[in-house]
């Protein structure tokens, strides 16, 4: 099949495609992926291009075309939030543990529970993880390829949507934190020794990450997002 053949399907003109993307995004509360858009539009349509036009068209308007991960949505301009008291949804107040855990997942993802505990210095309760999973702000990532194959957590598209982020790369201060080495999973000194003396075991448990290889995947945040 050559490209000429494909063009026989005659995609609608770009202006029409833009209208279609506009209608679809308006109709959905959740972000819509390019793939979904393409699936719903006539054959040969190029939603990605239509989105560029549409986004421009809505610049400075009361609603905006925003990117959420791999998907797109229309959202009201944040400066008009004051008009919307009526629509405001009271969200359950998150515990400090939940908020910190969420931030750690966002900045360190994919991250294991043991790593979260290592960073916070306390154990993470089941309820905290459950709450974040329920909010659909975090989800399970790939298993870490280390002994025990622990599950990892990553943030979701709903998280990005909620906090108005295009991608996890846009997390505030991410670059600075990385440059400061604060996103490094720096193993505690001496942890590369076969086994520390018996007496230190407790504190090794507390402050040592589950294992050294765990940190091979340090920069995965890039691969994943």
């Amino acid at each position: 099949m050559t490209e000429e053949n494909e063009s026989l399907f005659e995609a609608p003109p770009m202006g029409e495609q833009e209208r279609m993307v506009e209608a679809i995004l308006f109709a959905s509360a959740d972000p819509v992926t390019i793939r979904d858009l393409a699936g719903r539009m006539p054959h040969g349509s190029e939603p990605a291009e239509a989105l560029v036009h549409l986004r421009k068209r809505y610049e400075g308007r009361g609603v905006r075309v925003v990117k959420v991960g791999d998907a797109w949505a229309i959202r009201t301009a944040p400066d008009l939030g004051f008009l919307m008291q009526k629509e405001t949804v009271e969200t359950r107040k998150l515990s400090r543990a939940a908020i910190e855990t969420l931030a750690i997942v966002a900045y360190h993802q994919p991250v294991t529970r043991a790593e979260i505990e290592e960073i916070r210095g306390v154990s993470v309760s089941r309820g905290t993880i459950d709450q974040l999973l329920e909010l659909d702000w975090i989800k399970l990532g790939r298993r870490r390829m280390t002994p025990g194959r622990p599950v990892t957590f990553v943030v979701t598209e709903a998280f990005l949507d909620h906090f108005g982020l295009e991608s996890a790369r846009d997390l505030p201060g991410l670059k600075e934190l990385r440059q400061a080495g604060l996103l490094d999973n720096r193993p505690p000194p001496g942890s590369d020794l076969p086994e520390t003396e018996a007496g230190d075991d407790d504190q090794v448990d507390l402050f040592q990450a589950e294992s050294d290889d765990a940190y091979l995947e340090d920069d995965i945040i890039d691969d994943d997002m």
Partner: protein
Amino acid sequence: MSDNNSILETSVAERLASEALIVDVDGYEGPLDLLLTLSRTQKVDLRKISVLQLAEQYLEFVEKAKELRIELAADYLVMAAWLAFLKSRLLLPPDPKEEGPSGEELAAHLAFQLERLAAMRDASARLMGRDRLARDFFARGVTEDVTRIRKVTYTANILDLMQAYSRIRTKDEFRPLSFESRDSILTMEQALDRMRGLIGFSGEWTDIMSYLPEDWAGDPKRRRSATASTFAATLELAKEGKLEIRQHETFAPLQIRKREPQGD
């Protein structure tokens, strides 16, 4: 505000803070959280923090808690033991024979952990302070769900068809009509007997259907059988010259009457 005042205030604040520490020990999320709070009192960049001083503060805190007979969770005590160990390492000249990380390395790592925790706290505050969906910006209020139009197509192949047909044809229950159930059948003999008895009274043209036995006129199967056998019986009787049959037009009711003996 004078300097004196501020010093006074600071010491009051510190005193209050240390009391709060003890009262609120449960409010801390573990030793690291407590250490971070203590480190704040040093009022320096976390990178320049004196871990030795911090260790001393922590140990002091644990001592106080003991004096006040506050029960500390095991991990606080573990941390205390570790910090005591760290403190000795930091104070004593390094022993070249001793294996493992130096006191400085351990201190640096603790400082790193504190800084990292502080950074995450800061990041979470910044995150929660962002414009947020359904609070600062909003999604579409009326959504139009994609209506799924389910189009069902049915399939069957020739094999299905043949199997279905053979199933019907070989069904045990299958019987040709005449064998289906005896009690729904009015035999021609029965009808003939009945007609012979009745025809003598019929001088006028009468609809053949009125000759059906009353209890056979309701149920379609019985009515059908009775109609057939009654019709056959009338034909038989007509052949015998006992009655006449007429029909005004196609599909009109059949009428019969007794045939008067001829030659009379």
